């Protein structure tokens, strides 16, 4: 079995699976059990300033989106940072770290944007022996109304400023957790780097309303007939998170900045994908909330098996391997031509490919009296919609045409060389460059 040992910012953990800052990491009892279950590290649920703790609502904190058979696809929450006294959390963190020296213990912090506040809490966190801190610039609900969380993460100047304070008053690694509720993730990431951040983690949750009660017209989760936007997470957000991770990984200004990936990691495969896009570790919450701590067993065994199959001996062998393949649309090879192909032996004749293509795409699939569905190559633009709606995995595939063959749709011979939009004759900018 491949070794999953991870070194992230000099912080070692037996595997790259960390529990994200969230209810599962709110107290010693949970974190001890998580470590016993095999998690490589935790980011302790966000601590606030000394003084009266925050209060939470006393009604539902979570809303959900379901797939078939009530499979939880998306979750949102309106819970705030820890509502336990600071001192209690600090004592527990110290005890847990002392008992689990081989696991990563990161402390998430969110205090007001004043240097004195950060200067006050950082030494006390340092005393716990925790391995590093994560700055919560991400929570989109509640705390943001008080100028914290996403309210900071949405202003790159604040990110840079606060990060710099932390690097000044704390000598272990500083991870900046980013909010996805912005237009371009590269700006906050650059700000974190400029402030001296050792790493960024992302994504925090997405502002969301999961549903509306159609009897009383209250958004869910409903508190006495009213709702407030919550933070969305779970499998549904993974594509959004991975794109943001990739943007930071390939941005020349932040290239090489370590990343801890967050957003819908549910299986080993999700983790491997995030890591291939440049993440040194991944953080998990919704999967643990849905299935319990022991879900990490599958993640570890699955990642290890895949690494064995691929011949990777260390996670660093594949971290970032997909980054060079993430590019701009304008650099995609326009000479690459594929055609959909339906495997008649696998086809169950549901006709979903036909409906999709006929009603909403390129009218490139024919249907016979006997319900035989076939691709018409002279109409197929290889959009992939038929593949995506087909219920049988592998039944429809996209087969690349070979150089020298003639594309029956365009009548043009497939070229072997690479050619993209930047040089395409239809591109006015390309013409201008001539």
């Amino acid at each position, binding site marked *: 079995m491949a070794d999953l040992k991870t070194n992230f910012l000099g912080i070692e953990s037996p595997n790259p699976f960390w529990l994200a800052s969230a209810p599962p990491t709110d107290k010693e009892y949970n974190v001890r059990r998580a470590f016993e279950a095999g998690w490589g590290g935790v980011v302790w649920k966000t601590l606030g300033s000394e003084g009266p703790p925050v209060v939470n609502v006393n009604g539902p904190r979570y809303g959900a989106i379901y797939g078939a058979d*009530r499979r939880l696809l998306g979750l949102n929450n309106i819970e705030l940072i820890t509502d336990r006294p600071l001192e209690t959390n600090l004592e527990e963190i110290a005890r847990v770290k002392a008992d689990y020296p081989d696991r990563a213990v990161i402390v998430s912090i969110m205090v007001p944007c004043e240097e004195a506040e950060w200067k006050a809490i950082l030494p006390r966190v340092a005393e716990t022996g925790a391995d590093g801190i994560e700055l919560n610039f991400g929570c989109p609900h509640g705390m943001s109304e008080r100028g914290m969380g996403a309210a900071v993460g949405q202003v790159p100047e604040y990110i840079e400023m606060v990060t710099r304070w932390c690097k000044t008053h704390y000598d272990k690694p500083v991870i900046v957790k980013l909010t996805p509720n912005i237009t371009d993730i590269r700006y906050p990431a650059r700000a974190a780097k400029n402030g001296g951040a050792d790493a960024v983690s992302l994504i925090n949750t997405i502002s969301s309303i999961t549903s509306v009660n159609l009897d009383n017209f209250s958004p869910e989760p409903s508190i006495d007939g009213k709702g407030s936007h919550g933070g969305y997470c779970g499998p549904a957000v993974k594509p959004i998170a991975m794109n943001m991770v990739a943007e930071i990984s390939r941005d020349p200004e932040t290239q090489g900045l370590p990343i801890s990936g967050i957003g819908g990691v549910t299986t080993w495969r999700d983790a491997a994908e995030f890591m291939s896009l440049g993440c040194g570790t991944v953080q998990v919450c919704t999967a643990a909330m849905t299935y319990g701590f022991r879900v990490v067993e599958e993640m570890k065994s699955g990642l290890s098996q895949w690494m064995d199959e691929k011949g990777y001996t260390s996670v660093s062998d594949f971290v970032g391997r997909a980054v060079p393949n993430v590019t701009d649309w304008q650099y995609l090879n326009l000479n690459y031509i594929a055609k959909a192909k339906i495997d008649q032996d696998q086809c169950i004749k549901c006709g979903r490919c036909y409906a999709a293509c006929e009603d909403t795409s390129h009218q490139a699939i024919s249907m016979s009296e006997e319900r035989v569905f076939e691709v018409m190559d002279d109409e197929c633009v290889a959009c992939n919609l038929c593949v995506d709606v087909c*219920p049988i995995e592998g039944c429809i595939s996209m087969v690349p045409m070979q150089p020298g063959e003639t594309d029956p749709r365009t009548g043009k011979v497939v070229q072997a060389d690479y050619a993209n939009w930047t040089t395409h004759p239809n591109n006015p900018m390309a013409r201008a460059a001539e």
Partner: protein
Amino acid sequence: MAQGQMAPGIVAGRLSSDELAANFDDLHPAYAPHEAAVAADRCYFCYDAPCQTACPTEIDIPLFIRQIQTGHPEAAARTILEQNILGGMCARVCPTETLCEEACVREAAEGKPVEIGRLQRYATDTLMARGVHPFTRAASTGKRVAVVGAGPAGLACAHRLAMLGHDVVIHEARPKAGGLNEFGIAAYKATGGFAGAEVDWLLQIGGITVEQGSALGQGLTLDALRADYDAVFLSIGLAGVNALRAAGEDKDGVRDAVDFIAELRQAGDLSALPVGRNVVVIGGGMTAIDAAVQSKLLGAENVTVAYRRSRAEMGASGFEQDLAASKGVRLMFNVMPVAVHGNGAAVEIELEYTTSAGGSVTGTGETIRLAADQVFKAIGQTLEGAPEGLELDGRKIKVDGAGRTSVPGVWAGGDCASGGEDLTVTAVAEGRDAAMDIHAQLSA
């Protein structure tokens, strides 16, 4: 104290009331809402769906399943009932394994179709539990139509005609409406008095009068009906039963399976219903299976279905065969009855082995005797009491695609008419379609 399986002869009360209640409980219990949601989620919403094509009443199955999935089972029921007003009964008795569910693409994909029948029942049960009727009558046309026979075809025809504004009188020979839904079909397929409740619910449309004890040949003539009404629909079923043509057929203990099934369906107390210790059912269709399984469930020790052709040729579906086998019924193939032995009452039946290659059945000369104190004949029903003057097609009333007979103003459908399989769902389709044709003619 129950008599037990071993008590000799044909006796009542072989099993305790609790055992009987358990045995005759719902074959496919109703879905709970979450089960329905999970089952509905499996539907792929196929294009030009094969299940819909396979349904004789052409219910828009993908649509009604999607309506269940989105939380509107009543709307789903309406989608079903618009095509098939007896959708509740069909959900229970249709051989879905040879119709919609056989055609389901998930049957092809994984041998596990979407459970369309149970979903249909979930939808129709939900709507009917509300006690409301989803359709209203059109303005009265002043036209009157006679329907002869209150079975599935007659009821479907009457309902559609009433909905279109015509006044309908159903003439029914038996004391209850429903036809084979009420008097045929195994009890565990339509528990809780469903057949009767469905008829009552159907009649809520209004404009339909049921005249019981009124039948052709019993004071009713086709000529009189033609004179008194604007149109006539015949749905008289198959009242005759084929004979065994075996020696000793007249001995005590030998009877028609359809009578046994009807008696069982109407029995208030199953523990009072006698059944043999050793039961042999002759035949290979659904009636044979229904009689055999119910004999077993009543407490018969040994029940055998003896069919003169091979398993592949059996009319009863694979599902029905498996059901019988799972209840402990023995299925014998390629055997035909040659004699019932016994002194006054049946004691044994003598069967001759056959070959049925190439379609014709030939005895091999080798015989076997089975203990048989009760023998049920389930070798098919025949048209009986059809009015003179109607052209026949083989042994059924000849009709065209719209249900028109050879006599103007007279339509026919259901088991008595040519075309289609003898299924409840087919009868409903024929009754409905004849009603549309009658309506078109009366409106012309």
